[in-house]
């Protein structure tokens, strides 16, 4: 459904993405993992057109996204750090997004209800705590029933109750056949939420397979352990080749 073809991105001299090739398909859920600064967010942002790759091409439904914008109707995006106009209220923000994304389908306000956001509709954005902001981001990402959901560290900063609500929501969307791309450092969360693992290290795609396959390869039962073993194996291989 979405193909990244030979994506390179440089910020000045820093090579953030190095020849990334990746295909992701509908009704699958991908865990995008890698250490801090490995290029996960840059990859996501280049899919959204927020970052323009230095070279390479991204295809959405077999059409290049370069200079296109209509395809973003099919994407719900929850940013890592939600930045919103500071002097408007939550209610105004949600109304604004509904207004801008005019569409025929019914909106999905399940998360707004579950997080009880309607109670604080007239709170201004600048007065919100990091966690509440994250709840607003999540509610907005799921609001438009988009077939592709991109969640950049969705559970970071949320309280345990909210994490459970969000996870339930993600699982229910997963069963509806949507394509999910989730980055997170909480690997136990990813174990429940995702079907595939994409591992990025220093801008390079290192691993892309199903979680089951990864667990078999590494003889581990938990995703966290499996990833750790994978990284160790890679390091060992690298030290041998060097």
């Amino acid at each position, binding site marked *: 459904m979405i193909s990244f073809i030979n994506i390179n991105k440089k*910020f000045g001299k820093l090579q953030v993405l190095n020849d990334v090739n990746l295909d992701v398909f509908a009704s699958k859920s991908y865990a995008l993992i890698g250490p801090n600064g490995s290029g996960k967010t840059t990859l996501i*942002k280049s899919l*959204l*057109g*927020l*970052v*323009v790759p230095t070279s390479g091409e991204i295809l959405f439904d077999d059409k290049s996204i370069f*200079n296109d*914008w*209509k*395809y*973003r*109707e099919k*994407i719900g*995006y929850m*940013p890592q750090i939600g*930045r*919103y*106009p*500071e*002097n*408007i209220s939550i209610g105004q923000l949600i109304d*604004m*997004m509904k*207004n*801008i*994304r005019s569409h025929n389908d019914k909106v999905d306000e399940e998360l707004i209800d579950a997080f009880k956001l309607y109670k604080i509709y007239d709170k201004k954005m600048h007065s919100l705590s990091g966690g509440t902001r994250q709840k607003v981001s999540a509610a907005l990402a799921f609001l438009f029933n988009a077939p592709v959901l991109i969640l950049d560290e969705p559970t970071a900063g949320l309280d345990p109750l909210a994490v459970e609500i969000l996870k339930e929501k993600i699982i229910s969307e997963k069963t509806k056949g949507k394509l999910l791309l989730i980055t997170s450092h909480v690997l136990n969360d990813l174990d429940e939420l995702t079907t595939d693992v994409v591992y990025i290290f220093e801008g390079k795609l290192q691993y892309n397979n199903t979680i089951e396959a990864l667990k078999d390869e590494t003889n581990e039962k938990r995703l966290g352990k499996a990833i750790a073993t994978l990284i160790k194996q890679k390091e060992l291989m690298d030290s041998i080749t060097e």
Partner: protein
Amino acid sequence: MTRVIKYIFYDLLRTRFIILYTAFLLLSTFAMFQIDSDSGKVVLSLLNVVLMVVPLISVVFTTIHFFNSYEFIELMLAQPVNRKSIFLSEYISVAVSLCGAYVIGIGVPALLFGADATIITLLFTGIILTLVFVSLAFLSSVLTRDKAKAIGIALLFWFYFSLIYDGLLLWVVYSFSDYPLDKITLTLIAFNPVDLARIIMLLQLDISALMGYTGAFYKEFFGSNLGAILSFSILMIWVILPLSIAMRIFSRKDL
């Protein structure tokens, strides 16, 4: 696009700056009409306001607004909205509100105290100057990610066109005063929108006779239809060129 414009307008009006700007222009125009009853002299005094203050306010306000709405722009870019239409919406909203403030601030007192052709020209040149400097400010905003740097570049544009360029022009005219410079100065003036606006205004005020032969030459050129069309198109280039460069940079910018 109209929806995006609506939200930007809403945001602009809430900052109250535009209202303050309108009030300032209203107050100074009223005061000048009170001091002097001759509308020609009033226009001449207003001309100085227009040539210095309007570009200054335009560049500073536009740059500050652009950086204050960075979050909004970022939010919009993740939505199914065209990058170019976001940029144009920003431009249209800022330009329309600044021009609106200007037209109300100068136009309302002028109507009350009796408007004539010179006031119309003053309104017109002020609008064009606003558009030019809003374009330049957008250009300086997309050139850098740093707010302070962008305001610095924008102010530099203002300094250059309001003060430095005239100094350079004077120096050229002085050092080459033995040569016929009419056509060369006329060409050089086209490279500065503020000078162009000033000359269009001065010729309207019929004081070009004070400028001697050169004045007569200018009058002949700018007074003719061809000259008017030409100076108008040059000013339009000053609006469109920085804006299109800025738009090109913006459409490939990483956020």
